[in-house]
């Protein structure tokens, strides 16, 4: 349809009926005329309609899905009318786009009162004007619409107008002309007084400055482009492996940001002051041997790295007395810096900020990736949305095509399976296998947890092993090996079970892996807070826990390197050289992301005992990024399973928030509220629990005078009193419930609207069939009286196909 089409349409003349807009007011009239029409046409139209339907059944064979199809069964005339219907022109013609945006602008302006259909200006509905009698209607049409749109745009605020213009699917030149037109008249009557041209000398100077700044800025910008972290690397990964693998690296970047935030707060409020006021060292610093990098003990022990190094004094007071026996009055100039309080509140505040950020980003991700009614229409979504435009490599593109083809075939097979359900026996067998595999996986997790427990008990009971530094590494090594090996075992088991959908398979694998990691970490937490605290009486157990977490983190990294080396590089070489397979090993996104989450959990667990742990984690993440990137580009290929990148990132954020962060927070809360801190080291050495520091401070404030008496009050009523907590959680529950109800309501509305649309569609089909039958009858009559005069016929209407030239 590259050329404008024109053809003559004979419309039966019914005087008085022409040129009237259907409006809600004369609905009854319209009704009457319909009635008349139907009565008039009932005989022949019914016959024709039946004929049509029959023909169409023969053609399609499945008339339930599509009641009526225009191709093949209708004459070209009807097809042309169909082609110029507004719902179809909107996808291709400029005029229709303009009028659609005109309507939107109108709605934006009168947000509260949506205009009725009858109130619209005629040209706002392009379709009704198409059947115009004029010779060149299209050009005038478009101009008219454009001027209307310009007027509407003028009445909008500048910000809204620009937003609107930017979002219009028009070419740049058209947008610019629209904008210039919509700006012109306003400058006249709303000049801004006293802002320009008052002081020309000043202005010229400013002009020179601005120009200089501009060129400087341009140079800086191109430099900045190079500095945008990993822009090129991420583009390359996306181009070669698509969004799915890219999501792993983006997740890694998110984790880096979280750690950087945490580290910033900890350095500013805990480490900085402590470094500025160093306490006296208990003895000469031990010599470093190099093994400390792995164990974190030895010469690292008495540094700012661990809890034990921090003092329990008020830092910038000259007498530096312990907390509860403070005779010094604070100096007038400087605020006293109470280290225990700072330690506690910084950790608390940084956790709180992390929590807020996590919950916010999780909620945002949920809003993005789970829309109301997003579960239906899998075929259409796969076809329309699965191509990844980021892919830039021929090979990757071919791989993507293969994956999409496999996916489509799977979907079709699944669809056919659903329409011919499996036998009872088959389903029973499937359930049995599923149950067995689940049992085995849970058994594996339980076994791992037991093994960790037994081994840690053994470590506590054998005193000769505790003396050597290298022995400290055994427990992290065992845990790391279990963490590495058990998921492989689960994967082998998962190969046995039949899964209907590949997405479900991924979720199940994630779930099992997560259960395993949770079991191991839970056992370890019990080991640290339940057993070690009791065993290490008289020593600094906080330091020990911090060191253990450091060792776990380092060992996790080392094992990850080994896994990358053997699991990816060596496996690739073996499969290429020995097995002569063309396929490279796949990059297992789920397992890798879960490893990242595991590492992050370790960091959060250790923040209280080793404030520098986030720094270690940052270094680790940076190294992981480069190692994984290199290994990926050299050894791996994109997974051939379909991967819903945004759903998966939402799931991973949720996992990061829910078991990982929440677990760490519970662990730390328990440590702060319930466990007695060791009496020989750390900022809380004189207190019963760490939380006491806050209470002691409040008592101080009460003693200090009435000026700050609101603080103890706040403490007493809001923190100590449980009523406030109940109130907040009740409010939260109410909000959640309201949201659920709103979503349910929306779902109902969507159903209703869908029903309405399909009704309208049926109306449309009905009307078009009527039109068609009338047209055909006319044609037949015309043919029968060929040669007679045609003056009596209705004036011809010109129908042109609107075209976006």
């Amino acid at each position: 349809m590259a050329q404008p089409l024109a053809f003559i349409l004979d419309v039966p003349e019914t005087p008085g009926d022409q040129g009237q807009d259907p409006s809600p007011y004369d609905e009854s009239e319209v009704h009457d005329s319909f009635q008349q029409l139907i009565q008039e046409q009932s005989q022949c139209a019914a016959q024709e309609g039946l004929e049509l339907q029959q023909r169409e059944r023969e053609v399609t064979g499945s008339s339930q899905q599509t009641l009526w199809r225009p191709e093949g069964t209708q004459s070209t005339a009807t097809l042309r009318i169909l082609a110029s219907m507004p719902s179809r022109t909107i996808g291709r013609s400029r005029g229709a786009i303009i009028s659609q945006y005109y309507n939107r602008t109108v709605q934006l302006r009168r947000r509260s009162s949506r205009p009725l259909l009858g109130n619209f200006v005629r040209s706002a509905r392009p379709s009704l004007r198409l059947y115009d009698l004029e010779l060149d209607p299209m050009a005038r049409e478009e101009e008219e619409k454009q001027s209307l749109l310009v007027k509407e745009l003028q009445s909008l605020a500048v910000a809204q107008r620009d937003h609107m213009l930017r979002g219009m699917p028009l070419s740049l030149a058209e947008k610019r002309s629209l904008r210039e037109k919509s700006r012109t008249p306003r400058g006249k009557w709303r000049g801004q007084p006293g802002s320009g041209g008052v002081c020309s000398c000043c202005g010229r100077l400013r002009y020179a400055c601005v120009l200089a700044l501009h060129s400087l800025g341009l140079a800086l910008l191109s430099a900045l482009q190079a500095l945008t972290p990993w822009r090129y690397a991420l583009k390359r990964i996306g181009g070669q492996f698509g969004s799915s693998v890219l999501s792993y690296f983006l997740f890694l970047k998110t984790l880096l940001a979280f750690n950087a935030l945490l580290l910033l707060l900890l350095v500013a409020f805990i480490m900085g002051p402590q470094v500025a006021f160093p306490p006296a060292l208990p003895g000469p610093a031990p010599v470093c041997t190099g093994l400390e990098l792995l164990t974190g003990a030895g010469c690292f022990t008495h540094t700012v790295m661990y809890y034990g190094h921090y003092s329990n004094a008020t830092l910038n007071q000259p007498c530096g007395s312990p907390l509860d026996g403070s005779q010094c009055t604070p100096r007038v100039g400087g605020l006293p810096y109470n280290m225990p309080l700072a330690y506690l509140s910084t950790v608390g505040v940084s956790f709180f900020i992390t929590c807020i950020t996590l919950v916010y980003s999780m909620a945002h991700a949920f809003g993005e990736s789970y829309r109301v009614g997003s579960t239906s229409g899998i075929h259409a979504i796969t076809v329309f949305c699965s191509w990844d435009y980021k892919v830039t490599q021929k090979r990757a593109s071919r791989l993507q095509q293969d994956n999409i083809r496999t996916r489509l075939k799977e979907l079709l097979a699944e669809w056919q399976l659903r329409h011919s359900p499996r036998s009872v026996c088959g389903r029973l067998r499937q359930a049995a296998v599923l149950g067995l595999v689940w049992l085995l996986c849970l058994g594996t997790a339980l076994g791992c947890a037991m093994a960790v427990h037994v081994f840690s008990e053994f470590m506590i009971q054998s005193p000769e092993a505790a003396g050597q530094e290298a022995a400290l590494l055994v427990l992290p090594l065992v845990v790391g090996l279990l963490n590495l090996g058990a998921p492989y075992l689960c994967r082998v088991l998962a190969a046995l079970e039949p899964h209907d959908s590949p997405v479900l398979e991924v979720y199940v694998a994630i779930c099992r892996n997560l259960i395993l990691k949770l079991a191991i970490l839970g056992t370890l937490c019990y080991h640290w807070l339940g057993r070690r605290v009791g065993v290490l009486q008289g020593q600094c157990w906080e330091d020990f826990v911090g060191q253990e977490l450091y060792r776990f983190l380092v060992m996790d990294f080392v094992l990850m390197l080994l896994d990358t080396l053997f699991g990816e590089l060596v496996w690739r070489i073996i499969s290429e050289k020995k097995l002569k397979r063309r396929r490279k090993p796949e990059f297992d996104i789920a397992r890798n992301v879960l490893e990242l989450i595991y590492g992050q959990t370790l960091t959060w667990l250790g923040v209280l005992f080793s404030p520098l742990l986030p720094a270690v984690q940052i270094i680790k993440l940076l190294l992981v990024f480069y190692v994984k990137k290199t290994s990926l580009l050299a050894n791996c290929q994109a997974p051939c399973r379909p991967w819903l990148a945004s759903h998966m990132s939402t799931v991973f954020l949720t996992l990061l928030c829910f078991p990982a962060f929440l677990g760490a927070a519970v662990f730390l809360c328990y440590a702060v509220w319930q466990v007695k801190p060791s009496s020989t080291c750390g900022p809380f050495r004189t207190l019963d629990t760490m939380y006491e520091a806050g209470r002691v401070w409040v008592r101080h404030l009460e003693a200090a005078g009435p000026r700050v008496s609101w603080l103890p009050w706040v403490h007493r009523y809001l923190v100590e009193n449980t009523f406030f907590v109940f109130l907040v959680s009740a409010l939260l529950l109410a909000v959640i419930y309201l949201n659920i109800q709103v979503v349910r309501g929306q779902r109902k509305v969507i159903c209703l609207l869908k029903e309405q649309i399909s009704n309208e569609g049926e109306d449309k089909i009905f009307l078009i069939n009527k039109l068609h039958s009338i047209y055909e009858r006319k044609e037949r009559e015309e043919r029968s009286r060929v040669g007679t005069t045609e003056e009596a016929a209705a004036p011809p209407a010109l129908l042109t196909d609107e075209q976006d030239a």
Partner: protein
Amino acid sequence: MGGSGSRLSKELLAEYQVRGTPGPRELACGPLLGSRVRELAAGRPRPPQRSANPRSGFAFQDLTFLTKQEILLAHRRFCELLPQEQRSVESSLRAQVPFEQILSLPELKANPFKERICRVFSTSPAKDSLSFEDFLDLLSVFSDTATPDIKSHYAFRIFDFDDDGTLNREDLSRLVNCLTGEGEDTRLSASEMKQLIDNILEESDIDRDGTINLSEFQHVISRSPDFASSFKIVL
């Protein structure tokens, strides 16, 4: 970025560039800048103190979703496609690059929809070349910040192979062939194709007229959060 000669003018940059929602100050100076545009449109020389206003950049508000950096990069990449004598700013803005050269860009080379993309964005009468503004339009739609609405609109036009404003069975089968590969051994069998298209129509053709129009298409797209992240071309 070369010498200052190859740089875009500040006004032009500001015109293409995206900004956040302007604050009240910018809103207040809107009318003043409007008059500025009129002067420019009328071809009158502007007094220096008018341009001296640092807010004059706001005269040309955002027409694309690109940032300044991205526009500069796009201009550089576009100039690389041009012959040496056309690389100055003025002639590069007027130049038309034929499809063959645009398609040789690595960002488009592996894309099965590359011809369609170029056709949809071309404003030349013969639809066989892209100007710099068309190129910017293309990048703007495929950028990070473009709204899902405009992305889905252009996706619809890309998938509408016969340009008739609606996706019919023919369009859908060509689309599926693009997705799975055109070769004899790679495309779906006829029965699979028919089944697939039937399913697609059943799922998304709400008004049951046998084709998918723009709003039905956008309805499907709105349910897929991955679309906005995958409908992206990074230069």
